[in-house]
């Protein structure tokens, strides 16, 4: 029986991956005042971003509870004995911890659930979940699936270009990028995700420079296997960038995905993300 793969909604997993690879997704929640929406289930991206930009209330996010994980794990355990559950960096969310607790609870009943801290989120998390799912599809046992996930984690590089640091700051995940706060000039902050948290990478003044720098970063890695480009409110930027990269990396798989409500809450509008998966 194949190992089942679980991830969470912050993976922003494109639907085609979820369906084709049979990955289960546990939703986080985004909260506007008193309204609670489960990401990917109860609120569309368009509606979310409209509320984010035009609404009066700023949203907050919340991790799935232990019970939410049990609700996903238990039905899966009727069809399989083993689950690999891969999640958003534990430094960015309590999701991983809650998954661990659910896994421990079920371990008493003989289930084997490996919970993995991806140390990244969104595009990066998708790379890891997909790698694990492929290993499972090819008949790998739980240790092999785990190994595939761990190996992928080592090879993921994430860069994020923001319009403003304000959403990151408000959401509390600013980490070392705090060093970038307070500039009295208009700057576009570029961050990197490393060691599970947000790091300052560089600051640029104009969008054009920012895109050029992002392009330089993408092409500076000699052995790129796959590229993901994420966007929150500017799909055109993502598609233009995709085309630009495709011209110099014709044999590399390059896909785009929209950041969901949880990332949107913490990143804000106008975000462009670059995910690189290096070869082994």
């Amino acid at each position, binding site marked *: 029986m194949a190992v089942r793969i679980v991830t969470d909604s912050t993976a922003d997993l494109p639907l085609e991956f979820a369906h084709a690879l049979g990955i289960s997704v546990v939703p986080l929640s985004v909260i506007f005042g008193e309204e609670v929406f489960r990401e990917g289930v109860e609120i569309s991206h368009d509606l979310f971003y409209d509320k984010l930009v035009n609404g009066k209330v700023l949203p907050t996010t919340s991790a799935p509870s232990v019970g939410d994980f049990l609700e996903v794990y238990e039905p899966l355990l009727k069809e399989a004995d083993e689950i690999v559950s891969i999640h958003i960096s534990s430094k960015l969310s309590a999701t991983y911890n809650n998954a661990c607790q659910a896994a421990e609870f079920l371990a008493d009943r003989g289930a084997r659930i490996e919970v993995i801290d991806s140390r990244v989120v969104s595009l990066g998390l998708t790379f890891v979940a997909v790698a694990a799912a492929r290993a499972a599809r090819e008949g790998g046992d739980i240790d092999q699936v785990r190994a595939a996930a761990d190996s992928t984690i080592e090879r993921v590089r994430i860069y994020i270009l923001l319009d403003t640091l*304000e959403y990151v700051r*408000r959401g509390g995940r600013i980490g*070392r990028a*705090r060093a970038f706060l307070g500039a*009295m*000039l*208009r700057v576009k902050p570029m961050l990197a995700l490393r060691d599970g948290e947000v790091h300052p990478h*560089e600051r640029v003044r*104009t969008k*054009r420079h920012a895109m050029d720098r992002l392009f330089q970063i993408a092409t500076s890695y000699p052995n790129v296997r796959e590229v993901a480009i994420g966007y929150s409110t500017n799909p055109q930027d993502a598609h233009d960038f995709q085309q630009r990269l495709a011209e110099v990396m014709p044999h590399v798989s390059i896909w785009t995905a929209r950041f969901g409500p949880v990332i949107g809450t913490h990143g804000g509008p106008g975000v462009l993300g670059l995910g690189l998966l290096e070869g082994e």
Partner: protein
Amino acid sequence: MATRVSVQSISGSELRDMFAAAAAWLEKHADSVNAINVFPVPDGDTGTNMYLTMRSVVEEARRCREEGAGAIMAAMSRGALMGARGNSGVILSQIIRGMTRAVGEVEGIDAGAWIRGMEEGAAAAYKAVTKPAEGTILTVMREAGEAARRALDSGARDIVDVLEATVEAASESLERTPMLLPVLAEAGVVDAGGKGLLVLLDGMTRHLKGEPMEVAAGVREGQVGQEWLAVTSQLHEQEESLYGYCTNLLIGGRELDPDSVRNRMLELGDSVLVVGDERLVRVHLHTDDPGAALSHGTGVGSLLQVSVENNRERADRFLEMHEVRATVEAQPESISTVVVAAGEGMATVFRSVGCTRVVSGGPTMNPSTRDILDAVAACPADDVIVLPNDKNIIMAARQAVELTEKRLRVVETRSIPQGVAALLALNQDHELEANLEAMEEARSGVHAVEVCRAVRSTSMGGVKVREGQIIAIVDDELKLAAETAEEGALRALEGMEAEGASLVTLYYGADSQQAEAESLEGRIREALPQYDVEVVYGGQPHYNYIISVE
């Protein structure tokens, strides 16, 4: 459920009681407002200042013999001017003054008059501040007034309904202030002046509704972020006179001219607020030379009130209040930077972007190698990068390399815009060599336009210049002469080869006014729509405008 009586009009005595209640309510919250006071200077007294201003307001209202609301309002306005304390107190006094003007000589204030008062109050507050910043009491007051207007437009006639809408809007506006003012975001608090204003409006509303005025136990107060406190503390250890002296004067006279007093004060320091009329002028500023401010006061009139306080000391006390030294260490930097710049605004800009030390200097006053060495010696890191920001200062910077034990490198920035771009490219997590490369690349991607007055007649590169004319220098080349700085700037930008550039930043100097800079901004946007334009106060001497194009 008891229905409360609808309040259609506020009489003079009710107005007095309302303001007294608001003052008392503010007194109860003064400490929590003080605790989050980080802008413009972390001196922890916004709450106290606003309360003391209100106390003077209420005293003057009590002394007033007349009964009409308009007369009481005028008395309160006088009290505000006389008793205004600190930056926020002066702004509050202007709000009240604006309200008084709008309300006029009436017996009772109805909803319409109250709302006009709020709108005028907001407008007066903005006018009082030389460099109005959003995300402060100004924003909260403005948005509160807008909400009041909306309430009136949708039919509200009961002043309590209007006030409730005002308080709600003020509260929301206050929550948003960190999104508008970076230092608030850094420190993790909302704006103190805005909070003080909210408390006053809330106090008035509670009084009119007959609600109890007890502060709920365990009310969560704003907590200033530990890291911000640590960084500020580190800054204090490095800088001698970071904020100068907080100087407050009340000048009395006969034909005083607040505008001319303000212009003089702008030359002496910053956070300048000057308000008043020909009989009374209230001055507030932060300056390193309070004596000069006082001399000006005695030169134009007589000093009725004087207060000079050391900002640095108050800031230290503020930090102690939050027990900083016991806790967090700011991230030590691995690479320090020394930047050469002239002008208080410029220094602030560079500091805000993360430089370690600023050496005062520029084209007409080159710093010596000694000046640069002193700054390098004061840097915490062993690796130091110097940004000379002028081609004539590169020499002095290079000489410093030999004369210091530190590993000193120079990125040969030839202008302020290059300096800013280079500094932005620095990343403390990267190696020195990688950083130097990135900074070099960043500086070469920026064009600089410098606009100033010609000190002598000359002819260079086909351009004829008469002494006293304005000249525009683009990337170190003299390009044109013009009659005004704005014309020079605009023509230089129009004539530039800057393909793909999209952002113009106007740093206006000590010889330019904000209004002129903003008008130039408008003209640039119109003539060159491919550019986004940003206006920043540089306060630099000599150059009316320093402009970056990137």
